[in-house]
């Protein structure tokens, strides 16, 4: 956010990559892409590539984290050192990644029936292999599909998209370029069944009206994302051979 560029981000209602203001980038989801993990999913969203894996419910480690009343979730969001178009970055989660991991974990603490699995943990790990803006939402929708692929009972799939503002105009599904040179980024993840907001972050200088529109668009976008998530799971269960 806040960088400067000579390139117009929006001209004649079209964004720099040719999209309209409410067009999302092409989204492809494949469930069950890993052999070892109990569940997995690959999300390709525009140029983003995020791989999510799920293990568990299994024994809690370290043991002092064990909760006798419910299962716990560990969530890791991490960007690979080669994921960025710019320079090589340090491996493993940085401060930004740790914050994202925390709020993403909260999303799944909401939808997973944790009370059914006391004294256990579920590990969700999202590796951003290639990043192009909107990776936290891509990671979360991948993780949601991976959880279902692992057969872990959830109240709902979670779906979402990031809304941003560029050249004073709200746009749906911001990419890296728009995030770098735009004025705002608002990732939103919802449970489409209950309509509840499960993840909301925002930066920029936004009016109440803009936020109202951002929510409206995010809900519309999330509904489209959900269809693709469901299709991926349907495909997984109709075609793939059963796992042990």
């Amino acid at each position, binding site marked *: 956010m806040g960088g400067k560029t000579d390139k117009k981000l929006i001209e004649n209602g079209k964004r720099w990559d040719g999209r309209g203001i409410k067009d999302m980038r092409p989204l492809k989801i494949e469930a069950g892409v890993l052999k070892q993990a109990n569940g997995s999913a690959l999300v390709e969203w525009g140029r983003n590539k995020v791989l999510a894996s799920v293990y568990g419910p299994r024994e809690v480690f370290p043991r002092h984290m064990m909760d006798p009343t419910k299962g716990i979730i560990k969530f890791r969001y991490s960007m690979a050192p080669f994921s960025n178009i710019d320079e090589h970055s340090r491996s493993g989660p940085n401060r930004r990644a*740790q914050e994202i991991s*925390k*709020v993403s974990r909260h999303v799944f603490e909401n939808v997973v029936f944790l009370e059914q699995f006391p004294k256990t943990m579920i590990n969700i790990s999202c590796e951003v292999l290639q990043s192009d803006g909107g990776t936290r939402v891509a990671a979360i929708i991948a993780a949601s599909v991976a959880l279902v692929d692992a057969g872990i009972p959830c109240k709902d799939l979670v779906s979402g998209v990031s809304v941003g503002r560029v050249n004073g105009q709200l746009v749906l599904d911001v990419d890296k370029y728009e995030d770098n040179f735009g004025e705002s980024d608002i990732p939103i993840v919802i449970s489409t069944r209950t309509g509840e*907001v499960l993840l*909301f972050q*925002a930066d920029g200088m*936004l009016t*109440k009206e803009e936020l109202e529109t951002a929510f409206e668009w995010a809900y519309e976008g999330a509904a489209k994302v959900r269809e693709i998530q469901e299709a991926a799971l349907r495909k997984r269960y109709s075609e793939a051979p059963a796992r042990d």
Partner: protein
Amino acid sequence: MILDEVKKTYVKDLLRHGKRADGRGLLDYRDIKIEKGVLPNAEGSAMVTLGGTKVVAGVKFDLAVPFKDRPEEGIFMVNAEFTPGAHPEFEAGPPGENSIELARVVDRGIRSAEVVDVKKLFIEEGKVYGLFVDLYILDHLGNLTDAASMAAMAALLDSKVPKYEKEQLSRDKYTGPLEVSKRVVTCTFEKIDGKLVLDPTVEEEIASDGRVTLASAEGGLIVAGQKSGRAGFSREEMMQLIDLSLEKGRELAEKL
């Protein structure tokens, strides 16, 4: 663990009757005290007492090398330290996720609102001012985010910029006060059994299902937001909280 359950039940029982343990309304802040300039060795400082919560913010300037993609901008950074004396569960060591989240939410609001013009922190090619805001949590009795964001903002308002001379920063000559364009404050709401409560105590935080923090600035602007915790919030609730934080934020900003 058992004590936590007792506290939870107590908070929830009271809330069922629309009450809080300290007698406040659901959308009232505790008493707020802001003292600026409490640490004269820092270039700016402020101690905020919010009810029993105590946070001190210190601002230091250093010489820094600009980020490669922002060669003409100074560096602005917020860090939070949960000191071991502030709460029995705080341990010394590298910052945990709560400390990182708090620092990043405070940072996001101030950065988004362009409170400090980082372009003015430029000195010469390859050399800029680094502006470091460190938030020391001294006593945790709930709602660290709002206390810390007030402390950060008050410390910035108290700051003076050291003069750059002879290849270093002077610690006794200043170019003047730091220019601050806006006053950014955060409002933190907890959702407890479906009820929304502003400025939570530590017991209310234990009982809480989820939290929303919204940073606002003059002119009816929301400049940062963060939803945290297990609970979901309806769209209507989100809009209600946006309205409330704009209204309450104005009151907080006046105290700075």
